[in-house]
C-alpha cells in the first residue's frame, strides 16, 4: 500500500509537470519588445478544405497572397516606430470549414503564436464567431466575406471587427432601384433557407413591395437542393418580368442550367452569390449565355487603373480571374491594414484599430471610410454581364453602362 501511495503522488506530480511542459506556464507580465521584428506576421486561419474551401480559394486566399507579394515587392510596410520597412508574412492555418476550429485557431494565432495582425476566415458564420474573440483581444480584423444584418447591428459590441464588403441593405436598395427603373411590375423570388437567403429575403422583399412591385411568389428551398426545376417551372408559369434568387453558388449554377433546360427566359434574372464568379461566365452559362444576367457585387477592372492593375496581377500570379464581388474587398482589406499601420506608425494593434476606425484609405475599391465599423463606399452594388465583363449598373454616378433589358434568351447549346 505504501508503494502505491508513493506511486499516486509521483503520478500526480508527473501529470502536473506534463501539463506544464506541454504548454508552458502562464507567463508573468511581458515587456513590449522595442526591437523591430524582421517580419510582420499576419495570421490567417481559413478554409483550405471542406465545403467553404472553393469560395475561399476563389475570393480570399489569392487576394491575400497577392497583397502580401505586392507589399513585399515594395520592400514592406513602413513602420515609423522603427523607421524602416518591414516585409509581411502570412501564417496560414486550415480551419476545415468548421466554426469551432476557426475560433480556436484565431485564439492560437493571437495568444500563442503572438502574430502581429490577423486576416479573417471565409464566410459569415466564421466571421460572426470570431468577432467577439478578436474584440476581446483588441485585434483589429477586416471582414471581407461576411454579409450579415445581425452582425452589423451588433457592431458596437465588437469594436475590433470591421466590415469591408457591401451588405444586404445597400445591395437590396440597388436591386430595387434598377427594377423600378426598368419598369418591372412582377417578380418571383426564390431563396435558400440558410442565413444568407433568409436575410436577403427579409431585407429585399419588403423593399420591392414598397416600391410598387408585385412579388407573385416567394419560396424557399434547402441549401444543397439537387433539383429546382419544379420551383422554376412554377415561376415560368407565372410569367413574371423578373426572377430574383437569393442563393449560393451551387444553387445559382443549378438554377441557371435548369432555366435553360426548361426554356425559362424571364426578362430579368438576378441571383446573389455566384453570378459574379468568372466560372459562371465561362462554364455554366457558356458561349455568351451569361449575357444580361444580373448579380450581386460588385467591382470590375474598369473601375480604376488600380483595379485594372490588381486584376492583371491576379491573373498573372494565379492564372485565374478574381471574382467580381469579394476578391477586391479582400485585397482592399490588406491595403487598409497597411495604410492603417503606416498612419499609426506602430505595430500596436490597438493603435492600428483606432487608425482603421477613423481613417480614410485609398484602395482598389476607391476611397474607403468606415462608419460604425462598416464600409460605406463600394464601386457598385449590382452588376450585369455585358460582353464578357460584369459591369456596374447601379443607378447614379457609379453606373458604367445601361442595363440590358430584356435579357436575351438563353442561347441554344
Amino acid at each position: 500500500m505504501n508503494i502505491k501511495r508513493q506511486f499516486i503522488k509521483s503520478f500526480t506530480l508527473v501529470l502536473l509537470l506534463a501539463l506544464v511542459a506541454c504548454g508552458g506556464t502562464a507567463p508573468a507580465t511581458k515587456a513590449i519588445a522595442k526591437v523591430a521584428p524582421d517580419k510582420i506576421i499576419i495570421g490567417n486561419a481559413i478554409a483550405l478544405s471542406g465545403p467553404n474551401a472553393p469560395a475561399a480559394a476563389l475570393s480570399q486566399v489569392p487576394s491575400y497572397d497577392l497583397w502580401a507579394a505586392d507589399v513585399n515587392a515594395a520592400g514592406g510596410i513602413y513602420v515609423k516606430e522603427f523607421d524602416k520597412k518591414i516585409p509581411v508574412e502570412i501564417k496560414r492555418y486550415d480551419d476545415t470549414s468548421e466554426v469551432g476550429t476557426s475560433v480556436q485557431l484565431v485564439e492560437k494565432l493571437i495568444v500563442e503564436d503572438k502574430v502581429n495582425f490577423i486576416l479573417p476566415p471565409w464566410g459569415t458564420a466564421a466571421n460572426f464567431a470570431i468577432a467577439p474573440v478578436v474584440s476581446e483581444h483588441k485585434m483589429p480584423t477586416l471582414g471581407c466575406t461576411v454579409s450579415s444584418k445581425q452582425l452589423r447591428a451588433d457592431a458596437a459590441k465588437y469594436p475590433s471587427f470591421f466590415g469591408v464588403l457591401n451588405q444586404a441593405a445597400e445591395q437590396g436598395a440597388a436591386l430595387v432601384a434598377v427594377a423600378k427603373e426598368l419598369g418591372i411590375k412582377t417578380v418571383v423570388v426564390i431563396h435558400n433557407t440558410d442565413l444568407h437567403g433568409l436575410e436577403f429575403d427579409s431585407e429585399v422583399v419588403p423593399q420591392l413591395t414598397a416600391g410598387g412591385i408585385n412579388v407573385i411568389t416567394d419560396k424557399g428551398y434547402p441549401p444543397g437542393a439537387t433539383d429546382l426545376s419544379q420551383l422554376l417551372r412554377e415561376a415560368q408559369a407565372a410569367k413574371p418580368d423578373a426572377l430574383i434568387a437569393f442563393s449560393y453558388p451551387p444553387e445559382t449554377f443549378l438554377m441557371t442550367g435548369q432555366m435553360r433546360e426548361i426554356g425559362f427566359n424571364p426578362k430579368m434574372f438576378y441571383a446573389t452569390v455566384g453570378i459574379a464568379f468568372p466560372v459562371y461566365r465561362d462554364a455554366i452559362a457558356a458561349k455568351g449565355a451569361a449575357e444580361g444576367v444580373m448579380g450581386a457585387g460588385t467591382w470590375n477592372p474598369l473601375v480604376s487603373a488600380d483595379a485594372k492593375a490588381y486584376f492583371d496581377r491576379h491573373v498573372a500570379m494565379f492564372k485565374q480571374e478574381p471574382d467580381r464581388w469579394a476578391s477586391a474587398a479582400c485585397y482592399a482589406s490588406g491595403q487598409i491594414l497597411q495604410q492603417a499601420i503606416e498612419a499609426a506608425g506602430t505595430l500596436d494593434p490597438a493603435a492600428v484599430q483606432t487608425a482603421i476606425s477613423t481613417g480614410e484609405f485609398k484602395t482598389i475599391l476607391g476611397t474607403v471610410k468606415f462608419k460604425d465599423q462598416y464600409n460605406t463606399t463600394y464601386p457598385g452594388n449590382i452588376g450585369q454581364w455585358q460582353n464578357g465583363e460584369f459591369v456596374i449598373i447601379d443607378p447614379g454616378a457609379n453606373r458604367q453602362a445601361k442595363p440590358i433589358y430584356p435579357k436575351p434568351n438563353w442561347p441554344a447549346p
Partner: protein
Amino acid sequence: MLISTILYERKFALTIIIASIVALAFAPALLAEYTLIKLITILMYTILTVSWTIFSGSTNYISLATAALFGIGVYLSAVLNNSLPLPVIILISGLASFILAFLIGTLTLRLKGVYFILFTLGVTALIRNVVQWWETHFTHTVGRHVPGVGNEIVYGYILAIFSITLLASFFLRHSSIGMALQGIGENDEAAEHIGINVTRIKILTFACSAIFMGAAGAVMASRWRYVDPGIAFDPLLSFLPVLMAIFGGTSRLEGPIIGATIFTLLREFLITKYPYLYMLLMGLSLIAIILYLPGGLVVQAIRWWIWLKIQWAKTKFQWQMLKSRWREEWRPKVSMWLAQWWLRVQWRLGRKR
C-alpha cells in the same frame, strides 16, 4: 456490485482518476492561455468518446447519433442563452439529450448491426433539417449568436462534466450493469436467457450516456459563439468519437481518453503545421491505425509492454544460464588449466637452472 465493493477493490485505479481530476483543476492557474484552450477541446472530445464508449464500446452497437445528442445541447444553449443561466441550460440540455436517446433507443429495439448505425446517422440528418425548416418558418432566421463566458469558466464546466463522465464510466464498467452490457455485446440472445433485461439496460445506458454529450454541447456553444443547424449537428462530430475510441481501444477505460487526446493533438498539429496536407495525413494515420492497431492503442501498448518484459525476462534467464555454466563447467576447467600451465612454467624454469 455495490459501489462500496467497487470502491474497495478498485481503490488504486479510482485514486488515480481522482488525482488526475484534482491535478486538472489546477490547470487554469498553471497553464498558458492557449494550452488551456487546447485542453478544453481535448476534454470535450474525451467526454464524447468516453460517453460513446459507455454504450457502444461494450454492446458493439455503433451509434452515430453523437452529433445529434451533442448538437441538441449546442442548439438549446444558443436558443436559451438569453433567458436562462448557463448551469440551468446545461441541466436542461442533459435532460433533452436523455429524452432523445431514450426515444432512439425505444425505436431501435429490433435494429441491429449496420441498420442501427444507419438509423442513428439518419436521425442526425433528420434533426438538422427539421431544425433548419423550423427556424426558417417560425423564427425567419438561421444562425444564433452565443455570448462567450470566458475560457476559465468554460474549462470549469467541462472539467466538471468530464469528471462525472469518467467516474460514471468507471463505476459502470466494474458493476454488474457493465458486465451485462458486455454480455449483450457478445450475444444478446444468450444474455436475455440468463435473465438480463436486455431492452431496459440498453435503453437506459444509451440514454444516460447521452446526458454527458448534451451537457458538453451546452457548454461548448459559448466557445463556438455562432451556432446554426449545420454547425450544431455536424456529422463529423458523430464519426470522430468513434474513430478516437477505436484508436485508443474500447476494452479499457484509458482507451477512449488516450485515443481522444492523441487524436485531438494530432489534428491540431496537422492543421497548423501541414494545412494543405491535413486530410491526407489524417486519413493515412486512420488507415494505419485500423490496420495495425486492432483493439486500440492502449491494448497494443500493453501487448508491446508485455512483449518487452518477456524479452527482458528471457535475456535475464539466458544471462543466469551463462553464469551458472561458467560457475559449474568452465571456471573449474579454466582454473585447472591455469594451475597446470603455472606448474609447467615453474618446472621449465626449474629445469633451466
